[in-house]
């Protein structure tokens, strides 16, 4: 694959909820290996944009391309098989299951074993081994057999990231990975995100500018569903419109 094909390309994307525009003519290019931060005030359409990239919502018009392939009309699970993975702003885990089972379900989603009606999940030991390894990477190795409902909020955030990382995605969407965390936990998660290999392209929504800006190379500012400023991190921060819309000074 040539380096000139964007990992993610969004062309003239529009989304209306009834008469309400949530995404207005969004054009976006994220190159392979890039770390992109998407910022914008509440209601700017950041998560709506993510939901269209993952296929949870279909856009009203426009196009989404993943590594040059048009995925605009594909189902969410088909996009996952093309190397797209995401985390959720609101924790979306399997609360009654163990951590290792949660991560294993992520691995199972991309494995042909998911259609096996006879062999138990425990038969696929390589998946469990891998799930434990990834949980170890996010510092939860010793808690792998605990139930998700028993662990702390900050740890759940790490399980969210472990689930996505286990899939070795080509493009990873992180929706406010730092939301609701203490300063100390933020540092932990920040280090985790910084350690994600460059084979994975990152697009991240985050409000905590102090932490998130360190992780980003490029920044996109959304406002009322429109791209206001888009470019290199320092240029976007220095831009007058960014200060006006977002930073407020």
């Amino acid at each position, binding site marked *: 694959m040539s380096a000139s094909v964007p990992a993610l390309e969004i062309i003239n994307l529009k989304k209306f909820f009834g008469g309400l525009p949530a995404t207005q003519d969004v054009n976006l290019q994220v190159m392979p290996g890039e770390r992109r931060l998407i910022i914008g005030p509440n209601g700017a359409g950041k998560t709506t944009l993510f939901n269209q990239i993952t296929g949870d919502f279909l856009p009203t018009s426009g196009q989404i391309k993943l590594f040059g392939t048009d995925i605009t009309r594909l189902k969410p699970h088909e996009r996952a098989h093309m190397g797209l993975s995401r985390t959720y702003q609101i924790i979306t885990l399997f609360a009654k299951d163990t951590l290792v089972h949660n991560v294993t379900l992520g691995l199972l989603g991309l494995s042909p074993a998911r259609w096996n009606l006879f062999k138990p*999940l425990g038969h696929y030991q390589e998946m469990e081994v891998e799930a434990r390894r990834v949980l170890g990477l996010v510092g939860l190795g010793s808690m792998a057999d605990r139930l998700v409902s028993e662990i702390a909020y900050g740890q759940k955030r790490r399980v969210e990231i472990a689930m996505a990382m286990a899939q070795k995605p080509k493009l990873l969407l992180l929706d406010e990975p730092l939301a609701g965390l203490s300063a100390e936990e933020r540092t932990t998660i920040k280090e985790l995100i910084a350690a994600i290999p460059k084979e994975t392209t990152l697009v991240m929504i985050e409000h905590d500018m102090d932490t998130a800006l360190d992780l980003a190379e490029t920044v996109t500012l959304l406002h009322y569903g429109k791209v206001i400023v888009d470019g290199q991190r320092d240029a976007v921060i220095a831009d007058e419109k960014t200060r006006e819309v977002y930073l407020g000074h």
Partner: protein
Amino acid sequence: MKRISGFLFLALLCVFPLFAGDFYINLVSQILIAAIFAMSLNLLVGYGGLTSLGHASFLGFAAYASAWSTTHMGLGVGTSAVISVLATMVMAGLFGMIALRATGLGFLMITLALSQVLWGLAYRWVAVTNGDNGMSGLARPSPFGISLDSGANYYWFTLVVFVIAYWLMAIFVASAFGSALRGTRDQARRMSALGHDVWMIRWITFIYAGFWGAVSGLLYVYYTKYIHPSSLSITASAEGLLSVIAGGSGTLGGPVVGAALLIILKNYASAYVERWNMLLGFVFLFIVLVLPEGIVPGLKRIFSRRQGGQS
């Protein structure tokens, strides 16, 4: 310990006809049939989170298909059994395509509507179903030349099918696919983001549940040697759902216990109380109030709490 008590119970079931009277043999046969029916519904309700109020469609359709193909087409009981089960699975495939456009209440209403269509057909399409008179004079199969006409022989036959059904459904829910199915119950959106085809998982489960529903339908029609539209009624579907919920949905043993309770109440209470449905209602109300998660998980909880208190 659990395994040993399971085998002891199974051994008891095997020798049961040697010391029990015909009434009790037939009672347990009915329970085993109702248990297969409830277990198949539980695949949808308990493991898939898809509450169906039309599961009697599969039982009734397979029973009618078997009755019609043996009496009208002159097929042997064995051939007709295979055809009936396959036809029911095709129907489940079609019903699933319609019903799985929705989940939750929408799914429940569509399954109810579809089963009501079948019920109406069974009543009105007299040329095929003999309408309100039902179809009688049906025969039981005789596998390997063994006649199943005696109560005890039919009981053993039913027991063998029940054990196979329980075993295969236990394998199904423990399988990798079964894990994915439970995932779609708990977090459908997350599952599709992880690469699981949620619709296909549900559709396959719907057909698999239809398969076991059809098997219970065959056992039922062989047992009664008669089939009436009431087997397709909403009451028949609701009784299955009650068994699942009362016994404990999402557990293997729950629907079996629920079905046993239902059949015992039906047989005993109806002999003494005219309004036995009301008694049934009270019993289930009591269960929901005292053991809201169902008998099997509820007793487990109470038992483990007591053990925890002692140690």
